[in-house]
């Protein structure tokens, strides 16, 4: 009797475990896929945000060719992630998407730093404008002094030149 009860309990336990696994796994796998899809979408958004930062930096006069090259590398990683997602490799897709996002965030951060440095350096441009203005002003002042002297010299020359009177 005891043996019969133990065997029954064993088979019931196996049945319960198998049923639980059959219910849980299908609900876990789609979650992984959805998570990978969301991470790919976030990586794409990070790529766009980084590009906007690069554009801002370029408008401030920064040479962004190096940053653009790094973003192209990040974009290639994202394309791989999408390919992996399409092939059903959610784990690989998620890893690649996170890698792309890290690359893009790094580029965006560098772009913002370079832009700040460029904006700070804009003061040099105003110094150039000021020096040009001061130089032009000094030149015109000197020219005016020379003109005043020339006018007096011209007048002396005129007074000194007496007309000849023929007999």
């Amino acid at each position, binding site marked *: 009797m005891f043996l019969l009860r133990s065997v029954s309990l064993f088979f019931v336990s196996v049945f319960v475990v198998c049923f639980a696994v059959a219910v849980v796994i299908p609900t876990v796998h789609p979650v992984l896929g959805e998570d990978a899809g969301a991470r790919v979408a976030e990586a794409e958004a990070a790529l766009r945000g980084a590009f906007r930062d690069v554009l801002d930096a370029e408008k401030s006069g920064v040479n962004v060719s190096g940053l653009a*090259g790094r973003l192209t590398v990040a974009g290639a990683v994202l*394309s791989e992630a999408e390919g992996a997602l*399409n092939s059903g490799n959610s784990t690989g897709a998620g890893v690649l998407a996170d890698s792309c996002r890290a690359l893009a965030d790094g580029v965006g951060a560098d772009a913002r730093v370079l832009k700040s440095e460029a904006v700070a350096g804009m003061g040099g441009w105003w110094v150039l404008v000021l020096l040009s203005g001061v*130089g032009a002003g000094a*030149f015109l002042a000197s020219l005016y002094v020379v003109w005043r002297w020339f006018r007096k010299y011209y007048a002396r020359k005129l007074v000194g030149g007496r007309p000849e009177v023929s007999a």
Partner: protein
Amino acid sequence: MWPLGACKQAFYVVGLLGIILFSIPTAVSYVRLPSGEPFSELYVLGPGHMASDYPFNVSEGENYLVYLGVGNHLGAAAYYGVYVKFGNASDALPNATAGVSSPLPLLYEYRVFLTDGQTWEAPLNFSFSDVAFDGNVSFVRNIRINDAVFDVEKMARWDNSSSGFYFRMLAELWVYDAKSDGFGFNGRFVSLWFNVTSGV
């Protein structure tokens, strides 16, 4: 001796030349010369990096290679998407005049970031699998682009005039617009015709 008036005019001219000379450094750092009409370019080259030897007669399982290229002449950095699509002879092509892309689904996307004047080239490796022939119809079910496999489920009927089963691969050029945070079709595309054969 010159009249005083003429001397005065000479001093005016010297003064004006001096102002121009002193303002040149500022002007050079600020003024942007006109650079011409902005445009982007998209091109495809054969396996030898030349506009020749494009794959045409293709069969299942064989690997094929072309190169896609993009050039930026927009005057500023740009974010390009090159969208690779696959269809048959009856699928609509993009309308470059109207700026409307092909309705075919996007299979593979290249993401390219270029500064003004830069160009980019990358290989496009592809092959076909699960190709079937049934009478005067050919089916292509899968296409591999680089390392990704896509279900395309495309069919082509036998073309009597050209004697073949014709499919087409498109690459469209899209450009990211930062203001709208979205991509727009640039109106440029390239396409390659393939005659799918049994390979026997």
